[in-house]
């Protein structure tokens, strides 16, 4: 049986890969560009993996940057862990950063990767030189207009669903399928991305078992969840964000998007921050418009 090679225009696999141990959890790290070039860190979003930067990262590498990204714990080729949390992601990100340099470096983060790394920047401002956020600025996630009584009912079903799922989580496995079936499934999360791109992602983010392709992502992770965290908290600290900030927003709402608009965001931003809104893009701005986003980021980094 011959292996099907799936390519995508402009996509380039990393030039190097290595492993970093983050307190016992193995993290897969990838690099594009010369190891002698100045480093820039790229952080992917939740349920993605570093390979989703295969079109975007080479544009930065070709402009003279050493582009470093990693699969978050439970994602891509990194270890599946027993526990996942925002704090654990922060520590893993810092472990990757430590493996690159202790000099300040710029970070580009998409979606949840943007949120996590902005918090890393607030906790370690001396380690970060500039920050570009790709549709991962805090937005309105709550439903503040729901009355308390209804809120209780909503919480009840959320909680019991979550606990029922936790009880099964240890026995779950990703469902096998053909390359096209996996691309189709991912299309529900990424409705604006082309079938060609999704097929390409399968060959990186999934592995081929005897009974078919399976996404590598830990089956014990799932969307949603709940907790005490409120997006307003991060938003209120934005005015004091310690390094130059570029925020790119994709205004077309979609499944994975955060729904943050410039009108909502700008009052919280530092005075010298730049907000660029793409009217013609969904949440995955760097995949829909790699060249435009790369040009903005390169200008911001120079």
């Amino acid at each position, binding site marked *: 049986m011959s292996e099907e090679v799936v390519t995508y225009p402009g996509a380039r696999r990393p030039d190097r890969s290595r492993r970093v141990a*983050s*307190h*016992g*959890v193995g993290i897969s790290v990838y690099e594009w560009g010369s190891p002698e070039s100045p480093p820039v860190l790229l952080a992917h979003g939740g349920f993605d993996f570093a390979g989703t930067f295969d079109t975007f990262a080479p544009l930065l590498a070709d402009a003279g940057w050493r582009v470093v990204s990693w699969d978050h*714990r439970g994602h891509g080729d990194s*270890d*599946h*862990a*027993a*526990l*996942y*949390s925002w*704090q*654990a992601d*922060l*520590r*893993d990100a*810092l472990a990757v950063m430590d493996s690159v340099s202790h000099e300040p470096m710029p970070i580009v983060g998409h979606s949840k990767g943007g949120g996590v790394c902005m*918090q*890393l920047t*607030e*906790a*370690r401002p001396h380690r970060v030189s500039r920050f570009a956020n790709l549709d991962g600025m805090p937005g309105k996630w709550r439903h503040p207009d729901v009355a*308390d009584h209804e*809120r*209780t009912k909503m*919480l*009840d079903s959320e*909680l*019991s669903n*979550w*606990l*029922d799922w*936790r*009880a099964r*989580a*240890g026995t779950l496995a990703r469902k096998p399928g053909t390359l096209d079936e996996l691309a189709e499934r991912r299309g529900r999360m990424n409705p604006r991305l082309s079938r060609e791109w999704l097929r390409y992602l399968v060959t990186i983010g999934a592995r081929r078992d005897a009974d078919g392709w399976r996404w590598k992502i830990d089956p*014990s992770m799932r969307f949603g*969840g*709940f*907790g*005490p*965290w*409120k997006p307003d*908290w991060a938003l209120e*600290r934005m005015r004091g964000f310690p390094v130059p900030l570029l925020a790119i927003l994709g205004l077309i709402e979609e499944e994975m998007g955060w729904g943050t608009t410039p009108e909502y965001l700008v009052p919280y931003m530092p005075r010298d921050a730049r907000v660029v809104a793409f009217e013609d893009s969904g949440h995955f701005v760097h995949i829909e418009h790699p060249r435009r986003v790369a040009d903005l980021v390169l200008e911001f980094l120079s």
Partner: protein
Amino acid sequence: MTRGEGRPEPRVQAPHRGARSEAQPSEGNRTKLRHNRVELALHSLRAGEGGALLLLHGLGERSPARVPLELARWPGPIFALDFTGHGESTVPRGGGYTAEVLMGDVDAALRHLGSATLVGRGIGAYIALLSAGARPKLVRGAVLRDGPGLAGGSARPGTPQIPMPDPNAIAPPDPFALVELAADVRPPDYATSFARQATHLSGLERPISVCTLERPDWLRAIVEEPGVEACEVEEALAVYASRASQESR
């Protein structure tokens, strides 16, 4: 088995031996339960007739070897759960603790026991509150006691930090659990939403009993809620034991 539909609770007999598929055969007085990739130790401290009492220890602690004196008059069987990273439960790699995950630990014990009255110390008290709200039909009263981890971080996040454990620490207790769960954010309105849910859905008049001297913000907020009573631990246990004996009849 479907939960939370108001059907009669199963009568609890002790000691329990692998009543559910996720439970391993018990070893001495300890039963191993599975929560995702973590193996939890559920200790049987004492047999008895009627509703079960489940003890939840404080942050950095482990289940007691014997029934604490203040709980001795409980008529039913008494169990104690080691949380993830504590006592004889698995110490996972690389941390990632949240209060919600520990609530999942308690849920594994409740699935095994059928139902229980919870007595939580410190962080175990906070987890008892969350469990009472999340599984109102299975938690037959939650008694909140002083102990390590009762306050948590604070009502709002402080300056962002990256909790780093002591690299020389010997686990258990997992040093990640200590640094992460000592700083978790506990907004009062989050705590009250669990208290309200316990009050609305448990069918108990006072599903939460606050028997603590320390009163962090989340605890001060729930004490004001209907269904939450501040009292002595003996009184709370008497109320829940009497209710449990009615239900098992």
